[in-house]
């Protein structure tokens, strides 16, 4: 073991790899910050107009409502890019992912007044604690703390194995909203059991749906109900304004005035939205707990090199999907028709006799990986795409205005954008070429958010963007991608020439020189710095035979093969030695090299 460790420590390739790794880490960090600063600055410099998009009229509201003569402004769906790039840094992501509702926590809800819900891995059950308003016999109201244990087989106030075990549950995070909790129903999907559950808190029952079949359009749900990537951050990135009606005309008809609502309760009426790993958005029937159909899919924003036809949730930096439902309240006394907002039926002095909810369709937004482009798409109740809008920047060219895709505009159309783009480009080209090329091939492998904290691969680089381009001829796409790292390749070639020349001077063997050339071509500046740190630190002397620098630790000149001669020393012609040793003042015949690689 000692010999192995010593051998490792003194072995030249090991030393080179160790030094190379240290240099790679220490060089990648400043380059990361340079890219991060440029990208963040580019985003902040984007005009607000290029960060938002809207569709008006929304195309989902029935014509009789949208085109009502009393309507002064049509319905409008708007979306804005609100993603803050620093939030993708690891240290923030670490804590955010562990807050209630985050991806690495089993706590779904936590309120300081004493209501919470979490998944207990040990028992496999959800535990929900809340305060229930009750009335004492003497009519005094009080709040009683209730703790429920929820399993696939039922709900109970005591922990009981008979309730069963969830294995990998996903809950509808929309339920954490206080408005939605009024419904007293919670939907759960278990990834391992592959079926949906409906928890009724009033009845304290669990209803289990059938297993997802192979024919289902949704095979691997990743989110249900509230389909929003960043639960804790950037709420209300998608907003909705219903048709605005003149206030004096409110009660002119006796018809019940429907309430159109798409608030953050993510209520889809009789359905629940289910997001699949592939980007498909399914509709779950809340009664039968089966997938009733497809409501749409996540839209693909237009980036610098265009957009793909389909996009997965992991490819988007942010997404949000809101269903639009038409809620109609019916009253026995038509004179008590009121205009009200939302499902807040408790605001009514009298409860409506009947409430009807009709699903109209969904609005889906997606933000590109680099956060520079957003797409907003409207899907009707059958899941057909009606309209799509993409963020654009209106570029002034004289008297004309030309809309430019925001994914392109971000790099050139704002003050200082060109300088920052060049800075980003330079930082990418100082990166090892081999890692840049690897970024091309692994462009889609990284989750969008994680790409912003990647150190060694560059999923948000220009070459990676090219790698994600809509597939055409592979060779053409690859070689055009190489143009994007041309400065990096040129730098690597120049550095490898320098390394090669120096290696000859320093007396490295042919094989070692070849490895260094290949290494420098692959790793560029990193390899060059590593070479400078690991090259033999020996003062070269002039060979008497060929006149070129030679290494004193080699018995023969590595250039001309001549033996040693130290002309500045004039040893005496005599010796007084024991035995019959002959004077040999010519260079030594010892072939041994010390410290030679």
């Amino acid at each position: 073991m000692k010999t192995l460790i010593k051998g490792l420590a003194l072995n030249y390739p090991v030393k080179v790899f160790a030094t190379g790794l240290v240099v790679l880490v220490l060089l990648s960090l400043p380059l990361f910050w340079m890219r991060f600063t440029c990208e963040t600055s580019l985003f902040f410099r984007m005009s607000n107009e290029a960060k938002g998009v809207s569709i008006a009229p929304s195309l989902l509201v029935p014509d009789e409502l949208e085109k009502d003569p009393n309507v002064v402004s049509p319905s409008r769906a708007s979306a804005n890019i609100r993603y803050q790039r620093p939030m993708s840094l690891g240290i923030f992501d670490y804590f955010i992912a562990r807050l209630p509702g985050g991806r690495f926590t089993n706590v779904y809800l936590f309120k300081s007044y004493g209501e919470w819900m979490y998944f207990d891995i040990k028992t496999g059950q959800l535990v929900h604690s809340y305060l229930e308003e009750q009335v004492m016999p003497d009519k005094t109201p009080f709040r009683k703390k209730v703790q429920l244990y929820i399993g696939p087989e039922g709900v109970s106030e005591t922990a009981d194995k008979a309730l069963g075990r969830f294995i990998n549950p996903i809950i509808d995070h929309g339920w954490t909203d206080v408005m939605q909790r009024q419904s007293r129903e919670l939907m759960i999907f278990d990834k391992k059991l592959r079926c949906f559950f409906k928890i009724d808190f009033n009845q304290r029952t669990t209803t289990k749906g059938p297993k997802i079949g192979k024919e289902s359009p949704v095979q691997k749900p990743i989110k249900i109900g509230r389909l929003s990537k960043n639960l804790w951050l950037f709420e209300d990135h998608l907003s909705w304004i219903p048709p605005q009606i003149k206030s004096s005309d409110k009660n002119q008809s006796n018809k019940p005035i429907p309430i159109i609502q798409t608030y953050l309760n993510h209520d889809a009426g009789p359905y629940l939205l289910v997001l699949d790993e592939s980007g498909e958005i399914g509709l779950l029937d809340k009664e039968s707990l089966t997938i009733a159909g497809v409501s749409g899919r996540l839209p693909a924003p237009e980036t610098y090199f265009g957009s793909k036809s389909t996009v997965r949730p992991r490819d988007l930096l942010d997404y949000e999907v809101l269903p639009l439902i038409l809620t109609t309240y019916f009253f026995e006394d038509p004179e008590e028709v009121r205009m009200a907002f939302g499902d807040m039926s408790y605001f009514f002095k009298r409860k409506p006799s009947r409430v009807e909810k009709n699903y109209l369709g969904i609005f889906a937004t997606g933000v590109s990986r680099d956060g520079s482009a957003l797409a907003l798409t409207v899907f009707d109740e059958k899941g057909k795409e009606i309209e799509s809008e993409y963020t654009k920047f209106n570029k002034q060219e004289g008297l004309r205005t030309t809309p430019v895709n925001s994914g392109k505009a971000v790099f050139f159309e704002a003050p200082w954008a060109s300088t920052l783009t060049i800075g980003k480009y330079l930082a990418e080209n100082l990166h090892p070429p081999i890692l840049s090329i690897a970024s091309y091939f692994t462009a889609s492998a990284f989750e969008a958010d994680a790409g912003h904290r990647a150190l060694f691969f560059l999923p948000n680089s220009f070459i990676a963007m090219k790698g994600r381009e809509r597939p055409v001829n592979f060779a053409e796409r690859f070689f055009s991608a190489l143009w994007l790292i041309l400065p990096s390749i040129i730098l690597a070639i120049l550095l490898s020439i320098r390394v090669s020349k120096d290696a000859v001077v320093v007396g490295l063997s042919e094989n070692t020189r070849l490895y260094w050339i290949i290494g420098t071509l692959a790793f560029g500046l990193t390899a060059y710095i590593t070479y400078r740190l690991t090259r033999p630190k020996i003062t070269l002397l002039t060979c008497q035979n060929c006149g070129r620098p030679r290494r004193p630790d080699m018995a023969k000149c590595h250039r001309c093969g001549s033996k040693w001669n130290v002309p500045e020393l004039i040893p005496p012609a005599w010796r007084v030695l024991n035995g019959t040793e002959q004077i040999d003042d010519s260079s030594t015949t010892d072939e041994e090299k010390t410290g030679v690689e």
Partner: protein
Amino acid sequence: MFALIKREVRDHIVYFIGAAAFSAVFIIMAISILHNYDLRRQPPAFSIVLGIPAITIVIFGICAMGSTQMYLDRTRKISALLSTLAISRNRILLARIITGILAILTLLVPLIITAVILMRFVSFLFPFPMFPGIVFNISVTVFLMAFACYCIGLQAGWNSNPLTPSLGALCLTCILLPLIIVKGFGLHILVILVLFIVASLLRTWHTFMTTSL
């Protein structure tokens, strides 16, 4: 080996005292924060604002220790004397590294114990594990980061020019430390730091074993 470690500890006792003092200060701060703030409402943001520069200073101190150990050895020819005694260069360097680890542990172990105890108290506020594994993740990351910066100090310190150990180590630590901001406290940073530490130590080992004393 014990004698070597004892020698190193005694020669650099000021770092151990500093580590213990910082540890005590952090513990008092943590207890004070928990006492004065209701964490159910909002964690005190100033604790993060103060905590980050404090940890930075501490890690610079650890780096300085590595740098000082090697610089003083080189200028005072300590290893030249020691390697003529019944010990090898391997052991001299190993004792040095163990001393560095002990200094880091002097700083971190009391903090970790306090954190675990305080988390137990905090768990009364939260009836479920609110941030499971957070103490472990942060402790391991901070330990590895401190050790990595210490290794940078060891590499930069083996120089007879006093500027190189101080400025060089400082610059490289300033570059490495923000890795925590980039990667957070998860598995990725642990892998990077472990590889960095192994590579750094191999380099230091090679330099120390082949240099003239």
